[in-house]
């Protein structure tokens, strides 16, 4: 993790503020800044308000919301690993009714743009949640829906949707169908729908393609990757949930590889040209720039927030300094630049 040295950083930042256009967009959803929180790493979002200005973030991505309240799993729910951690939370949350009644108004009040992450046990649950969110209309702070397909499919022995192109497509069809009918009923543009991909698949592009075929208008890559830790004393799994999702800088190379593959597939015409939001191990502006260089148009900051609750805002400032130092005037100029040998700043 970077520990910014005060005088040098603030000098660079001042130059950067004047110089770099950091705005970006995900379809019709315009973001003044390219960093977001990551789902499950900022709770409802309000928790971070004492540490950063929620309205200055690109967006707040909420903890995945389900139809019903959910207690989550037993504890221990986490284990620290080298440059990362495992978590096994079990989607603890209040359910969509309480989310809409209590959590969303607080984010609206704070002036935040919101990406609501949704999860469910079957496509119908996803569709219902998307319909409720899409019906809120353009006055709500919700700018996009992120579909957490890395959750278990009740109909298929709990195999996660994201590991099965057919199941992923079915979820995205339910979500995009609900979003489209809300849009045609209201006459407002449809909410962008991001499918959040798992790296734990053999053919990432095939799953991504199934999602866009199902109606996803964007992709988020990546969710956590499955891991396990054995307690040195009991020699049993340390997490109550046995396995957990690995996150943090340890998985950054996997995120960079996945975003590279998706972008390469778009450039080859194998995948439609949808925006990709990057996530995985971002703790600094330099980290964010890696994900952007391989094709991410915006970046989520997850686990780094646990160590530094101001991280999502700090990463944007550091990214600005990284770009300014390279003489880059617009973030848009470096998105996917790693795919273009010979182009770009030196």
């Amino acid at each position, binding site marked *: *993790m970077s520990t910014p040295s005060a005088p040098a950083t603030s000098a660079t930042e001042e130059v950067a503020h004047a110089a770099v256009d950091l705005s970006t967009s995900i379809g019709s959803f315009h973001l003044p800044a390219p960093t977001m929180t990551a789902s499950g*790493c900022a*709770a409802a979002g*309000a*928790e*971070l*308000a*004492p*540490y950063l*200005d929620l309205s200055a973030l690109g967006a707040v991505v909420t*903890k*995945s919301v389900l139809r*019903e*309240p*959910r*207690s*989550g*799993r*037993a*504890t*221990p*729910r*986490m284990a*620290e690993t080298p*440059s990362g*951690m495992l*978590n*096994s*939370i*079990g*989607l*603890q*949350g209040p*359910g969509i009714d309480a989310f809409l009644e209590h959590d969303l108004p*607080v984010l609206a*009040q*704070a002036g935040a743009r919101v990406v609501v992450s949704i*999860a469910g*046990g079957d496509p119908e649950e996803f569709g219902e949640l998307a319909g409720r969110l899409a019906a809120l209309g353009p006055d709500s702070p919700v700018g996009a829906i992120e579909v957490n397909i*890395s*959750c*278990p499919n*009740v109909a298929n022995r709990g195999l*996660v949707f994201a590991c099965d192109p057919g199941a992923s497509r079915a979820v995205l069809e339910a979500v995009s169908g609900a979003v489209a009918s809300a849009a045609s009923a209201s006459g407002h543009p449809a909410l962008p729908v991001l499918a959040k991909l798992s790296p734990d698949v053999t053919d990432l592009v095939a799953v991504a393609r199934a999602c866009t075929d199902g109606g996803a208008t964007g992709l988020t890559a990546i969710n*956590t990757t499955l891991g396990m830790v054995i*307690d040195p*004393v*009991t020699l*049993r799994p340390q997490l*109550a*949930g046995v396995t*957990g999702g690995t996150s*943090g800088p340890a998985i950054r190379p996997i995120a960079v590889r996945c975003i590279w593959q998706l972008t390469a597939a778009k450039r080859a015409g194998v995948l439609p040209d949808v925006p990709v939001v990057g996530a995985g191990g971002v*703790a600094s502006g330099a980290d964010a720039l890696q994900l952007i260089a391989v094709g991410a148009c915006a970046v989520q900051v997850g686990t780094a*927030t*646990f*160590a*530094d*609750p*101001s991280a999502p805002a700090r990463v944007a400032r550091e990214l600005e300094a990284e770009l300014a130092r390279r003489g880059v005037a617009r973030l848009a100029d470096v998105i996917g630049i790693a795919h273009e040998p010979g182009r770009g700043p030196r």
Partner: protein
Amino acid sequence: MSSPVSWPAGVQEAAEVVSARPVGAYTHLVLRAPEAARRAQPGQFVACGTGDSGMLLRRSLSLHAADPEAGTLEVVVAAAGPGTRLLAAKRPGDVVSTTAPLGRPFPLPAPGTPAVVIGGGYGAAPLPWLARVLTTGGSRVVGIVGAASADRLLGTSAVDDATALDGIADAVVVTTDDGSLGAPGRVTDALPEVLLELSELGEPAVYACGPMPMLRSVHTTTREVLGERAQTWLAVEESMACGVGVCMTCVLPVVDLDDDDTPTRMLRACTAGPVFDGDALRWDAIGAAPHLRGGALVPDDAVGAPVVGRAGGH
């Protein structure tokens, strides 16, 4: 920045180590964190970075003291694993990244309420500060500090004057499991007598900080000795990834005592705690699976508990 959350929020400060000295088996650190020092109250904690870039997560430490004039926070660190080993090895001039003060402080009783403050091992760290606040409020305060052995004691002048309850509490009882200092036995062996003595002055308030089995035993003993009387305030030590309420790793099953339906919810120890009413903790689910060291199960009747056959997600 105004806070839309209902719990005390911390501030982030790069805190210089002002002093570091051994106290028994522990290290007493004084950290310069002026903003946190202005706001802190007994029972709150500080989340400290270890300084190792490969060790992402902060370590939570109870505040031993806060001095608003000097702008300092004090902690007592037990070198348990790799992160606390690094913290215990900090030297004056080192800088520790801090977020503090976090969590809800010990609730204070009506002025003059007799109180017992109990600490196990480094769990005694917040007690002298708490005892000072209680005696200032007119409480008679008895301290009980215990540990497995003398070198793991804290809070008694037999180990160290600067971190001791002596001279602050009206009386201090010391216990060690091996009898190497004070009375042989556990803190809860000494508790009944103290409770009975204090209850002659009024219904006592019980404050405890230490490992979960000790907290359970403090709660059980208090109920055995005084029935439904006496409120127990227990500062828990759950495994925390963030300390600021965003990760949901630190939850405990807690009953809502203010609601007639008394529903149980998995509440975050870092924002709803670390101090809980002993009657609100679901002791049947805490520590119920021995292979999950320090873990808690989700009671079947908890809000949103898994329905048989329904799989979870992460």
